[in-house]
């Protein structure tokens, strides 16, 4: 038996105690470790499953986190056999945000999702929504993330965090890449003319030559703006307000773009200094308007009646009468709207008053700029209008409103009296029919090609311009002995499908052409004047082609 006091005894005792304790510990560890791991994952598992719905996950943070120098990685999870998911955080514009990004083992992005953030909707929040998410998902672990214009801080922060994740993932997966690849600079949105741009949120105002407007983070920017003859002669921003944030500095040196600007000039944002650029534009707009840009209405104090307003220089409206039934006429009108695009509308005039106004969602619709004008609410503004009315334009949709007013004015002018109608050059005098052969349908530029002529019957292929100048086609079979139309078969192309003239294509209506001679008096199909005219034009041409 060893002596209790000997060093050996003590050493042995200590060793035994430690061994026994160690064994006990590993025993308990074996039992509890899987449970602990499962618990740890359970908290994030729901989120992880959004990227790999069938995955089994393992928390491998401890294994790799030491490689991360940035401190932005919260967790690393391995989806067995599939890839890795990183949960990351960083500081955005509104505070800390958390998100996760997953990479498949082959390097493609498996998923990207924001977990929590306090970003501004429409700006920083875009980093975690819709299009941007899709863009990220289409990338690989070697690509930098695109930046978003107007939310530079947040998208740059996201990019930094993802770079940290990429570094570790590419290390694990053995993918080589360039860690210093610059992210794409975002495409700046197309600039809009100052007069059209809604800068009211900048609350710009000018006191003589000194203007102020809200810039980045709501800071008040100041500038000296000198305007001469409706143009900006000089623009000198003070180095206060949002200057010094480090974000929009470039905007304070890129000042050439403002010199010589008028209300119609389109000025681009300075990339990475969207807010500051906007504040500058707001100040310039206010200076040019000689007041505050927040009150667009002030500009249009003097409203002109529809009869007096001059549309010839811009809107250039034109209307064709679709149908006329006594005091009620329907016009298909077009006018140039925003961005040189052609707007169309159907206007019903009843007794020299507009009874209905519906604009087609084409032309400048979809630009977002003038879209407010395309609502039933706005259309109601035009109902009841006469040539003596003045109609307000819709704030933020000035040009579109003008195009609408132009169309209404034109329709009303067309309505008022036979003299006005002739001005239009419309070849149909209301619905009254004329003898076919005497009718002037040259506007429809009908053409005819004889397919067969056996002396008894002739088959002629005809074309003529129908509604919207679309080419209608028809096969006209003419009985040469009686000089009448034996059959009229029109193709369902050309202006068919517009809904406007489709009534003319119905079997019932087509029946009216059977058996007619050259002096027949044919009615327009109600609501399909132009199509009907084109049909008659083709029949005319068919007769002519048969040498009659």
């Amino acid at each position: 038996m060893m002596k209790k006091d000997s060093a050996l005894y003590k050493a042995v005792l200590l060793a035994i105690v430690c061994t026994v304790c160690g064994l006990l510990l590993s025993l308990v560890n074996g039992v509890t470790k899987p449970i602990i791991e499962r618990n740890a994952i359970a908290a994030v598992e729901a989120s992880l499953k959004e990227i790999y719905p069938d995955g089994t996950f393992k928390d491998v943070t401890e294994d790799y986190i030491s490689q991360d120098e940035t401190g932005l990685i919260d967790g690393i999870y391995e989806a067995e056999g599939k890839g890795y998911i990183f949960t990351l955080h960083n500081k955005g514009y509104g505070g800390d945000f958390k998100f996760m990004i997953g990479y498949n083992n082959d390097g493609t992005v498996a998923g990207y999702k924001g977990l929590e953030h306090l970003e501004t909707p429409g700006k920083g929040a875009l980093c975690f929504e819709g299009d941007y998410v899709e863009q990220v998902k289409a990338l690989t672990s070697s690509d930098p993330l695109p930046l978003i214009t107007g939310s530079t801080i947040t998208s740059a922060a996201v990019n930094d965090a993802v770079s940290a994740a990429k570094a570790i993932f590419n290390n694990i997966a053995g993918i080589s890449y360039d860690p210093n690849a610059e992210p794409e600079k975002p495409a700046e949105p197309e600039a809009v003319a100052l007069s059209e741009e809604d800068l009211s949120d900048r609350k710009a105002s000018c006191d003589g030559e000194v203007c102020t407007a809200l810039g980045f983070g709501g800071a008040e920017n100041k500038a000296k703006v000198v305007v001469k003859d409706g143009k900006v002669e000089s623009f000198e921003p003070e180095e206060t307000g949002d200057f010094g944030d480090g974000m929009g500095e470039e905007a304070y040196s890129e000042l050439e773009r403002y010199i010589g600007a008028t209300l119609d000039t389109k000025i681009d944002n300075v990339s990475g200094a969207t807010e500051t650029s906007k504040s500058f534009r707001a100040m310039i707009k206010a200076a040019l308007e000689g007041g505050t840009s927040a009150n667009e209405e002030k500009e249009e104090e003097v409203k002109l009646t529809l009869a007096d307003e001059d549309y010839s220089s811009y809107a250039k409206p034109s209307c064709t009468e679709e149908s006329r039934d006594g005091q009620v006429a329907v016009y298909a009108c077009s006018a140039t709207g925003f961005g040189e695009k052609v707007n169309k509308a159907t206007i019903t005039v009843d007794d020299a008053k507009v009874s209905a106004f519906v604009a087609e969602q084409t032309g400048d619709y979809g630009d977002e700029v003038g879209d407010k004008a395309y609502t039933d609410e706005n259309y109601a503004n035009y109902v009841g209008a006469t040539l003596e009315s003045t109609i307000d334009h819709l704030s933020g949709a000035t040009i579109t409103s003008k195009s609408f007013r132009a169309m209404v004015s034109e329709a009303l002018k067309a309505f008022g009296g036979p003299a006005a109608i002739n001005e239009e050059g419309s070849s149909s005098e209301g619905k009254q029919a004329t003898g076919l052969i005497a009718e002037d349908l040259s506007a429809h530029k009908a053409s005819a090609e004889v397919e067969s002529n056996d002396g008894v019957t002739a088959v002629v292929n005809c074309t003529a311009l129908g509604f919207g100048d679309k080419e209608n086609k028809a096969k006209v079979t003419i009985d040469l002995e009686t000089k009448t139309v034996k059959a009229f078969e029109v193709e369902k192309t050309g202006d068919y499908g517009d809904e406007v003239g489709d009534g003319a294509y119905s079997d019932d209506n087509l029946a009216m052409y059977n058996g007619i001679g050259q002096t027949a008096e044919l009615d327009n199909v109600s609501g399909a004047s132009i199509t009907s005219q084109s049909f008659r034009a083709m029949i005319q041409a068919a007769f002519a082609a048969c040498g009659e």
Partner: protein
Amino acid sequence: MEKKQGFFTKLLVENPVFGLYLGICSSLAITTTLNNAIGMGVAVIFVLVFSNIFVSLVRNITPDDIHIPVYIVIIATLVTIVKMVIQAYAPSLYTALGAFIDLIVVNCIILGRAEAFASKNSVGASAMDGLMMGLSYTLSILAMSFIRQLLGTGCLSLSNPFNNATIFDIRLLPQGYEIPLFTGQTGAFLTFAVLAACIAAYKNHLDTLEKEETKKGATK
């Protein structure tokens, strides 16, 4: 009757927290809710009982110069086992107690009892001592938690740490009348001070009674 009184007196007077002023760190830090107090108390009882048992078992074969490392290894092992078990089966308690589970190792009560009692007494007695001390500690921190939670949040609540099911949650003070001071560190010290003073007063009272008894006995 005597025995019972003795039992309770022992609990109160030889209270490790308010009587012997041992293990104050944890009593100040975690006594914010009843749940924490019960959780910590059970952990400490477990460690105390088993460390006393093991220390008592090895007391005769451990030479004096290495008895501290031996005791510490034993205590640390037990605490680690407790920690792993809590982490696996009661994760919410684990998050609430946090680092203080590890700090049970250096809780003076454990090593104190090991040195003072378990190294000199039989296994059975040591186990009993561990249990008593543990219970005493638990009651002390329960008292502190009761006061602090009641005054600090106005509610008293208890939930099952294994599945987070609420056992009860009652509001005793109307909303707006709670004193958040008690949930923080200042409140901890205040509560501790008041309770310690009460126990000290009671102790003095008992001492006075005893003196009178012996006096009476002497004069008899």
